[in-house]
């Protein structure tokens, strides 16, 4: 009995990792887990997964854990992480790719109905446009 056994889950995970890498255009496999992104992230303490953990789970293709995490919705795309990354991975792009995957499985993540009356009247226009483009649609 010398047959190769393919475990389906491993196969799915490999494909998921490749999908995240392709969508984000980032060399996720290059991450060395130095943690610089997490150290500099202004919102890491609000997240359930740290930015470097998001990249690690992306390497492993664990899409379900990532898509159901709160971390990807706390990214303000301030680019501190990607700018400091020694292997030049733009983690903001990884988060955006994961949000894009999340929209497919759980639409209605953020929309105009979630904007408070106060913000609708007072927030600068750019805030609403960028918010819808990053966390909605």
């Amino acid at each position, binding site marked *: 009995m010398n047959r190769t056994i393919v475990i389906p889950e491993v196969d799915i995970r490999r494909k998921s990792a490749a999908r995240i890498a392709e969508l*984000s255009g980032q060399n996720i496999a290059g991450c060395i887990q130095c943690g610089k992104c997490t150290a500099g992230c202004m919102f890491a303490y609000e997240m359930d997964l740290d930015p470097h953990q998001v990249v690690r789970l992306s390497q492993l293709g664990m899409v379900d854990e990532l898509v159901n995490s709160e971390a990807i919705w706390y990214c303000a795309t301030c680019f501190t992480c990607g700018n400091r990354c020694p292997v030049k991975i733009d983690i903001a792009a990884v988060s955006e790719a994961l949000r*894009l995957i999340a929209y497919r499985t759980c639409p209605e993540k953020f929309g105009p109905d979630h904007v408070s009356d106060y913000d609708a009247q007072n927030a600068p226009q750019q805030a*609403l446009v960028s*918010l819808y483009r990053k966390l909605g649609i």
Partner: protein
Amino acid sequence: MKVGYYPGCTLKGKAKSLDDTTMLAVRLLGNELVEIPDWTCCGATTPLTETKIANLIAQTRLLAKTRDAGYEGLVTTCPFCFSTLKRANKSLRDDSLKRRRMNTYLAEDQRLRDYEIPKPAWEEYSGQVKVLHMLEWLRDEIGFEYISRAVRRPLSDLRVAPFYGCQLLRPSEDLALCDPENPVILEDFLRVIGADTLDFPARIDCCGSYLSIAKPSAALRASFRILDAARRLGADAIIVTCPLCFYNLDSAQPRMLAEFADFRTIPVLYFTQLLAFALGSPMELLGLDSHTVDPKPVLMKIKRTAGVEP
């Protein structure tokens, strides 16, 4: 260099004072900026995923319009506009696939939209227009030395904390305005107009950006840390360039007073308001009434000591 002025949506709406004081300061410097004809939205953010090609059309359309109006450059005061336009411009220059796709969209667009007016065939746009931030334009085109000679009201009694935020600096490879970890352009500018500029450690942090709408409490804590750092340094005011930083840092202060026991309010000002004030503009023209935390008491301090009448 012949440059067109691009105000963007927020400067015509919620951040009217930023647009007004920019125009006022430029006039006081004996110069003039003309708005790009028929301008539209800049797209606000840069699409980061490879599939979001359509989100680049607004930027390309605007840049091509600037070129067609005969301008070599575009100057904008809003960091969101600056960031998204400069990054789109770079990808149109470097990425041949994106360039071809964008130009195909816009060529089709022109044919469909302007069918009544005969126009020459679409000329490919490949990133020729130079995108400048107002600070860059003041430094390179007007010259800081010229500005320092034009100052009528030195602000040496005003201890200010410069705040850059995110969109002006990062990603530094694309924006190339200054060092992302140790930026100097805003400090240099503030020293030129005579303000006592503090070495502010939180100046490159993020104020929370659009998260103030989606995740208000997280953004409130981020903004609080910045304001608290400025207060501990003894700053009279925080100087910002971005309408969204202004919104997060200024109008959230009543909520911070309720939430954080040791919080003290601190006025937030746009760099153009301070520039116009230093150039001798009366306080009434600075649009200070729209501020949540009144900056007038801080500015009155200078008015008295410098002895220059408005």
